[in-house]
């Protein structure tokens, strides 16, 4: 049995950027997932949601909560990531200057998703889009 949440993200709309992650976080808190696990999920989801809004012109954020784990799937039909290995390096970013002025685009997003999650799968095709699946086990582990 699982609880499934699905939110659409509007590309380029920074006023609402992060709302999907905030709603998922509140639901996880209500369900009673340990606080440190909720924090890891919230940060990882927010990073992915911001990437969709910055780079992809919109997409979807889906959370599926099982008794022992939460799976976050973030998908878009954006430009895709040409070199995932390079994108996983801290500091690597293709974000435009206006995004940096808003406090993002430091090249920490994907590395932080790896750090926060217990497992991550990144599938991306240039010109077609990106699909990221993060698994978070509901075991306490301070971040």
């Amino acid at each position: 049995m699982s609880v499934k949440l699905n939110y659409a993200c509007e590309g380029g709309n920074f006023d609402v950027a992060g709302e999907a992650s905030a709603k998922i976080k509140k639901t996880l808190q209500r369900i009673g997932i340990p606080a440190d696990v909720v924090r890891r999920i919230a940060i990882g989801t927010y990073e992915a949601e911001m990437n969709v809004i910055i780079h992809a012109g919109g997409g979807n954020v889906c959370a599926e909560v099982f008794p022992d784990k939460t799976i976050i799937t973030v998908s878009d039909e954006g430009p895709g990531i040409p070199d995932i290995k390079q994108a996983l390096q801290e500091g690597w970013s293709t974000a435009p200057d206006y995004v940096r002025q808003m406090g993002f685009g430091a090249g920490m997003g994907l590395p932080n998703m790896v750090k926060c999650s217990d497992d991550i799968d990144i599938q991306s095709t240039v010109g077609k889009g990106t699909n990221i699946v993060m698994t978070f086990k509901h075991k306490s582990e301070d971040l």
Partner: protein
Amino acid sequence: MLLQDIVRLLDADVLCGQDLLDRKIETCCGSDMMSDVLAFCKCNSLLCTGLTNIQVVRTADMTELSAIVFVRGKIPSDIIVAEATENNLPMLATEHTLFEACGILYQAGLKGCKRGEK
């Protein structure tokens, strides 16, 4: 250190969360890059920043920050203060620069969020 000590040390105005000034602050992060805050900030930390957009509140929510200090005399819009109020996130504003504010707090005993430290 309590948040009310930080108000005094930085000669700060309280924008919201006046009733939460007894909150205990153990670590602090100074940055205008929310990407770095998300990557390195520990929960229950104080954030000193010159950035005043809505992403500051969202980042604080995700990382479980205890309070925000806006430096260089920056004041966020009423909408942002309202959202912080709803999230029980105290906001302060000081005329000090980011460097000065962090220096004053460090000298008073507040520690930083060390990279890699849990």
